[in-house]
């Protein structure tokens, strides 16, 4: 936040709560368009459930494809929210304050989107509850040695913890909205949501301690969730998957993609709601620097992977590397390298990383690159396993594209509702970094 200007506690309340005013016609038009795309996705899903998984592009040997790519992509997106809200909180990085609420919201909605895909991917979706441990007639329990079950525990824990973290962080702000709004239905809503918060020293004491513990729990959780997702692949002996670098590679990639989406979301919000005083160039520059770091880690993984394959002496592993770079999917592979390694290099130039338009465009490239990274890992590896006779080619179907578009609409639907109903910037934390009003300062 730019503290050079005369931002006061009252102004923070006014500016942030103003964002919740009656939606404009542009917002409504965007929301209706979003619902239309969601409708297409829903229609495709119903058609798939009714007809069966044959409507997808699945064919031997590729039975994990776009849906699982979407799952990994959205779980990855969810990671930077907790990085910004929890890890940077523990490191006392003040630049997080202006952007953490938006990234936390992004986390919660991205997990809600990711969670759909294992279900969409199931042939008989109505049996999804078989994934959960529950006492049944045959006393048969789930297999805790399966990475897919680790996934269920990791992702559902992450969804719960990030939602709790998101909600608890908002309680003082919800009370501020409750105290300002006049319309009765909104007053009732925010009164319920703010849980009777009064801002007493007693409440702040327990609140700040609890928030610290949430952050301390969320930090190792972030690391574990995408490590577990990477083990969905690394535990199998498929060439291209069976490698020990997957957990750090996935975690860095997840944070990288999440940061890019934060920029993609924050740039229009900043312009539309005129938040230039609160979200400054310095915030974008700090995020760009984190993108440089994570991009370098991802680039390192891209280099190490083929070296490990070559050094292993396994013809299957090396064959996979050659297939990725020169096979029929090579354009996707090189698109991934271009978007995730080459394009972020531009951020080394201060002029570019402090240019909002350039950052926005770069963030879009990274979003595309990271989606293709997941696709490449999953589809290319499966289509080129051990036996040449069992190699195959996967072609995406319209139904899969429709459901993928629907998933983006699902995410943006929550996001559009969020920016009009909940405080998109943390009112109380923005005030914390302002100088407290003192009589001494006033008299000076």
């Amino acid at each position, binding site marked *: 936040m730019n503290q050079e200007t005369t931002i006061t506690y009252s102004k923070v*309340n006014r500016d942030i709560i103003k964002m919740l005013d009656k939606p404009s016609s542009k917002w409504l038009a965007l929301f209706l368009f979003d619902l239309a795309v969601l409708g297409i996705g829903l229609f495709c899903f119903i058609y798939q459930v009714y007809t069966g998984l044959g409507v997808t592009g699945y064919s031997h040997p590729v039975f994990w494809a776009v849906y699982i790519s979407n799952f990994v992509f959205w779980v990855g997106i969810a990671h930077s929210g907790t990085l910004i809200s929890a890890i940077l909180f523990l490191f006392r990085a003040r630049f997080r304050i202006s952007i953490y609420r938006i990234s936390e919201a992004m986390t919660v909605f991205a997990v809600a989107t990711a969670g759909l895909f294992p279900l969409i991917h199931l042939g008989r979706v109505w049996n999804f509850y078989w994934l959960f441990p529950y006492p049944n007639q045959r006393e048969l329990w789930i297999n805790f040695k399966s990475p897919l079950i680790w996934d269920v525990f990791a992702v559902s824990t992450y969804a719960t913890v990030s939602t709790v973290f998101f909600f608890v962080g908002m309680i003082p702000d919800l*009370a501020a909205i409750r105290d300002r709004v006049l319309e009765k239905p909104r007053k009732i809503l925010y009164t319920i949501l703010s849980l009777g918060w009064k*801002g007493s020293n007693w409440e702040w*004491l327990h609140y700040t301690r609890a928030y610290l513990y949430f952050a301390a729990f969320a930090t190792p959780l972030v690391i574990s969730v995408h490590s577990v997702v990477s083990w969905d692949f690394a535990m199998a002996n498929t060439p291209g998957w069976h490698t020990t670098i997957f957990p750090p590679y996935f975690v860095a990639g997840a944070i990288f993609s999440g940061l890019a989406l934060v920029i993609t979301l924050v740039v229009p919000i900043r312009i539309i709601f005129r938040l230039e005083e609160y979200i400054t160039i310095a915030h974008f520059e700090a995020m760009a620097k984190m993108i440089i770091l994570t991009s370098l880690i991802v680039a390192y993984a891209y280099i190490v992977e083929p070296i490990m394959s070559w050094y292993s002496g396994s013809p299957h592993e090396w064959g996979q590397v050659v297939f990725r770079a020169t096979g029929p999917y090579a354009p996707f592979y090189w698109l991934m390298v271009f978007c995730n390694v080459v394009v972020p290099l531009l951020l080394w130039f201060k002029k570019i990383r402090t240019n909002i338009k350039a950052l926005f465009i770069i963030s879009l490239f990274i979003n595309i690159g990271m989606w293709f990274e997941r696709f490449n890992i999953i589809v290319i590896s499966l289509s080129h396993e051990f036996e040449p006779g069992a190699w195959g080619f996967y072609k995406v179907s319209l139904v899969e594209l429709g459901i993928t578009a629907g998933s983006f609409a699902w995410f943006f639907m929550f996001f559009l509702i969020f920016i009009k109903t909940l405080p998109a910037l943390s009112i109380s934390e923005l005030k914390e970094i302002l100088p407290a009003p003192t009589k001494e300062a006033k008299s000076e």
Partner: protein
Amino acid sequence: MKSDQGVMGIFSYVDSTIHTIKKLKKEGYGNLRAFSPVPNHQIEEELKEHESPVRFFTLTGGTLGAICGLGFTVFTSLAWPIMTSSKPIVSLPPFMLIVYELTILLGVLSTLIGLFINARLRRNAPAAMYDPRFSEDKFGVLVGCSKEDVRKVEEILKSSGAEDIKFEGI
């Protein structure tokens, strides 16, 4: 000291608020509560009676999560013992993942319960003495005192710079 009356002073400045708390404590008024739009360490230091017990909820929940995770994986594996790939039935390394996740899950949920119980975040309506300006830019000091002391407390609050004073039987 008998405290059946409440006197609330509303301040614009944090230093006036802290000064008032110090003065009231010096005068022997121990039943104090401060209100502020942001957490303030100086106010907290002046009024802190003890450490927040939320940490015990966190520790208990985390420990319980670890025990549940271990017990759950071990006992369900033993309930239907199928040997796969010559691996032991009770295979601790993969079970540790479940233990890890459940430690975090129950730790967070019990911290949440600890917060609700200790900060008394269960009433859905603010108390009568609460002022909506506390969530914006004002600070408050609520003094619990006897009926005879009300005037004296009012005097202290006024002389310390209170802009507004509220009274209520508590």
